[in-house]
């Protein structure tokens, strides 16, 4: 991490501490309404010690992983198909255009009705939410693949499967990774909503519990953990991307 980034984060922490401890001293609003960094750290330490935080994180991540994973596989397969097959594209396009603007959360109650309160509804909801944007981005990335690359490969003897495996996938990979990053961020985004309703574990449940039992520090802690998870996953994906795409940077560095 660069120095400016660390400085910016420290800055936020300082402002937060100043405002919350200042509030304690001046008594602008009820102290419990504005948790201090110390209180949040205490809740964090407690929930780590009793094992509840790791359990909530694991539960949420498992739901995200399964829902996002299934959606990613489906988006990749159908994105390739739609990009390569004009009739499929013409059929799918209007459906996507219709479904996409509907805020996914609008359908959450429907998923609870269909899949019950268990894991099924969370996983299915994440899958549903992340599928469409990933599908659209992947199909677009495949459509952008330069046709002369396909021609070059075909005149070297590539068949349909070779073209997919050895040209389309590597050529579209930068776009595919962007789509996956987008999908994952979205999954973390909506898992909380899904866990607000009828869940007995997960970070969304932890946050809701903070509301029910009036522990604002727990709400803030849950939110910060989500942010941290998102950053870690994003950093991992970026690192993978940089390794995979050395060929793009090779020109700039030598």
């Amino acid at each position, binding site marked *: 991490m660069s120095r400016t980034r660390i400085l910016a984060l420290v800055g936020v922490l300082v402002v937060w501490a100043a405002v919350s401890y200042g509030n304690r001293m001046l008594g602008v609003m009820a102290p419990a309404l504005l948790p201090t960094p110390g209180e949040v750290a205490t809740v964090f330490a407690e929930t780590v010690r009793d094992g509840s935080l790791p359990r909530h994180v694991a539960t949420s991540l498992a739901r995200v992983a399964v829902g996002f994973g299934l959606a990613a596989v489906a988006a990749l397969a159908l994105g390739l198909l739609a990009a390569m097959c004009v009739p499929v594209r013409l059929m799918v396009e209007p459906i996507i255009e219709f479904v996409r603007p509907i805020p996914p959360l609008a359908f959450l109650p429907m998923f609870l009705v269909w899949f019950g309160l268990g894991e099924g509804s969370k996983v299915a909801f994440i899958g549903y939410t992340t599928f469409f944007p990933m599908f659209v981005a992947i199909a677009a990335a495949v459509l952008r693949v330069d046709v002369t690359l396909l021609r070059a490969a075909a*005149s070297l003897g590539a068949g349909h499967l070779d073209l997919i495996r050895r040209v389309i996938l590597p050529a579209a990979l930068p776009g595919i990774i962007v789509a996956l990053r987008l999908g994952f961020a979205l999954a973390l985004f909506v898992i909380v909503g899904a866990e607000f309703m009828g869940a007995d574990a997960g970070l969304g449940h932890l946050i809701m519990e903070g509301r029910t039992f009036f522990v604002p520090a727990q709400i803030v802690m849950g939110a910060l953990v989500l942010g941290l998870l998102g950053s870690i996953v994003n950093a991992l994906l970026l690192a993978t991307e940089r390794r995979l795409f050395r*060929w793009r940077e090779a020109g700039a560095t030598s």
Partner: protein
Amino acid sequence: MKIRVRGLSRTFVAQGRETPALLDVDLEVAAHEFVCLLGPSGCGKSTLLNIVAGFLRPTAGEVRVDERPVTGPGADRGVVFQEYVLFPWLTVVGNVEFGLRLKGAPAAERRGIVARYLELVGLAAHAEKYPVQLSGGMKQRVAIARALANSPEIILMDEPFGALDAQTREVLQDELGRIQRVEHKTVLFVTHSIREAVYLADRVIVMTSAPGRIKQVFTIKLPEVRDRFAPEFTHYESEITRVVKEEVAKVHE
């Protein structure tokens, strides 16, 4: 005949209007012959080459290679494009061995063939580089090595040196001439440069302005290794220039 083009026509439909690009083209290329296509811009040279490569379908007529009709692209016809089409995520070696991998050639065999062709195009020292690290001339050498390493009997080239500066261009012409004396491919080569055509070709085919037809064929009776300043060379050059100019003039009428 290695390549037989018969009654070939191709019409494009753009904005609801039909424009003929090629009209009733007959053309034969013998095995190991180097044929250059010349003609004004837009006369259908690329269209003809793309149909022979199997990228485009003709509206009428047919192309036969070894007497079998062409139905699509294939490893028997290597292609070198004007815009240095390399796989950017593969190194020079990865690009050159692309076709060999498709065929399932074992690693040792691939290494030998790749080394031989990188040597032939003078890029042995750049084997591990990625395309972004290469100059235009080097990229086109890789594209030529990639086509040759796949050992097709036919090589189709569409203005392969068109985007290069004049010096690099002549260097690559020399190299291609030298390679052809070793490899004896059947070559169909599109160019705008009359000098390039006379330097490389066994036969030069001049096409008419659009819709493209064959206007005139010149058989170049010059020694294998050519001197760009020999009087016979410049004689061919000026004669072909005269014929091409007639057609170019028609485009501007």
